[in-house]
């Protein structure tokens, strides 16, 4: 894993991508610093980070677009996947390399609040700033995992970048999307039924075993309908809740107020872990295609 990690980190700096990312990130944070902190004479650097954070859909694709696309295109994936390394080692190594570069960039921005501290008369809102930093890094990790997942789906870096841009942007506006969804129990039941059918279809697609897929669909639908008549409160606004799970910025706002909940940390870790896992899964699947 360290071999992959070192190689990826080095590649960022031999290909200019690393410099481009750092320069762009510092430029963005610096701009927001001027407009949010300097002009209004505000000491809350957390708001700067919150503003810069919405630009992840530009920053993250730079980091992740090449992770797997480039290997597939240059056929170097043959070297990696025929080596004694496991898929998990390769995927996690790559993820950590991208994440490290991101953290290096974030680390450089610590200069801004440190400079402000020198001039702040009443001191700085430290807990908000620390909370914002934690949130910024966690949202970054989640976005990088999504970007890496998209990068494994295509061998074209441009497509990977654009798709990552779209995915992260969708997560950013997810709250607004979720609010337009119907919240009645009946609509929720239809949504759950569609999900169950989709799972059954994926199961059939990957196993080609129609009896177990049909059983999965029938049992799943039965349980869903049964639950609906037993206690349909469970179905209350389930679409909204499902979509909100993907709204990774919602919890960022909580963190940026300096409130640290274990639940929020677990949420971000599981979000990143889910997409790292999906990436490994795609690679394993591809072998059997």
């Amino acid at each position, binding site marked *: 894993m360290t071999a992959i990690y*070192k*190689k990826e980190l080095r590649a960022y700096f031999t290909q200019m991508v690393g410099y481009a990312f750092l320069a762009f990130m510092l430029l963005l944070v610096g701009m927001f610093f001027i407009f949010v902190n300097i002009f209004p004479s505000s000491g809350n650097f957390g708001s700067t980070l919150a503003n810069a954070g919405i630009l992840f859909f530009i920053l993250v694709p730079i980091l992740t677009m090449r992770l797997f696309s480039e290997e597939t295109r240059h*056929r*170097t994936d043959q*070297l*990696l996947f025929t080596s*004694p390394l496991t898929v998990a080692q390769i995927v996690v190594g790559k993820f950590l390399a991208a994440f490290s570069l991101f953290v290096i960039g974030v680390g450089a921005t610590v200069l801004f609040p440190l400079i402000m501290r020198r001039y702040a008369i009443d001191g700085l809102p430290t807990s908000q700033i620390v909370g914002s930093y934690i949130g910024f890094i966690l949202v970054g990790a989640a976005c990088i995992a999504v970007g890496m997942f998209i990068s494994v789906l295509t061998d074209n870096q441009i497509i990977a970048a654009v798709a990552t841009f779209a995915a992260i942007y969708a997560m950013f506006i997810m709250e607004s999307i979720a609010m337009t969804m119907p919240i009645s129990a009946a609509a929720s039941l239809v949504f759950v039924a569609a999900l169950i059918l989709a799972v059954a279809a994926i199961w059939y697609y990957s196993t080609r075993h129609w009896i177990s897929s049909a059983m999965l669909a029938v049992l799943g639908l039965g349980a869903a309908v049964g639950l609906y008549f037993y206690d349909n409160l469970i179905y209350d606004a389930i679409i909204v809740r499902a979509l909100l799970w993907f709204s990774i910025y919602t919890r960022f706002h909580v963190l940026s107020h300096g409130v640290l909940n274990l639940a929020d940390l677990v949420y971000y870790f599981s979000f990143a872990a889910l997409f790292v896992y999906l990436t490994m899964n795609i690679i394993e699947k591809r072998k059997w*295609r």
Partner: protein
Amino acid sequence: MIEVKNLTKQYGTHTAISDLNFTVNAGEIVGFLGPNGAGKTTTMNIMTGFIAATRGDVAIDGQDIIAEPEKAKQQIGYMPDTPPVYGDMRVDEYLGFVADIKKVPRGDRKHMLHQIKAQVQILDVSRRLIKNLSRGYRQRVGLAQAMVGNPRVIIMDEPTIGLDPKQIIEMRDVVKSLGKKHTVMLSSHIMQEVSAVCDRVIIINRGNIVAQGTPKELSASLTKAEGMNQLRVKATSEAARAALKDFTVIRHVEISASDEPGTVDLQLAGESGADIREAIFRAFAKHNLPILSMRSMDLSLEEVFLKLTGDRRTS
């Protein structure tokens, strides 16, 4: 060393290879021969664990490539048809990375890499960026990569493709020298190449093995079945035909004018490969027609290959 059993790979409804069975013994150099699209690369990708088979097993030194991938892959060096190199790394940097992922102990590394670089003759480009290297050098870096970690098995997919004649000869010499320490399997669609370096040849066509054996055996078995003899006789074609009139064991006669005045060329074959050379001599001697030359027509390996991999739907 390598055992391949009932290997089948289907892409959707298309069957790339079907039910391949073969073994490669330790220390052998085996050539895997077939026209483009015969399934060579698919087979090699499965053998190295890059893709999985639909059915069947591959065992490297007794270790299954799917069940125990880490152990099995440790034994294999793979050189795919496109060298899997990173253009923006220097040669030394790249080989160091390969040594890392193949878990070569730090202590042995420097010596091992130097030896490999000397063997494939890339010492003079150690400090160059791979993207600036010529095709031949890149190919050699790809081969060096396969040799890192001293794997017991080296698998090469079309190692000489895209090289110039001099580089091809150099690559052959390297392959031969590899055979002393490693078990080698290489694929090619060029017969001469395989017959020049390999102990044994497996010919594959449309995903099936159509023949295997030493280059000699392959050529002999087909020549015998044909049993064709070519003669030049000092006679007119009518006289030659008359001489063969009471000669019953002949299946195939072809008479043509030769470029030497007063002679004809004949192609004669006995019934199902019977040796008729003596009978031919006696037949012409009886009619007092001198045989100037006679030779059995050996099929060259090239011809064997073309015969085996020709369009089989017509046969």
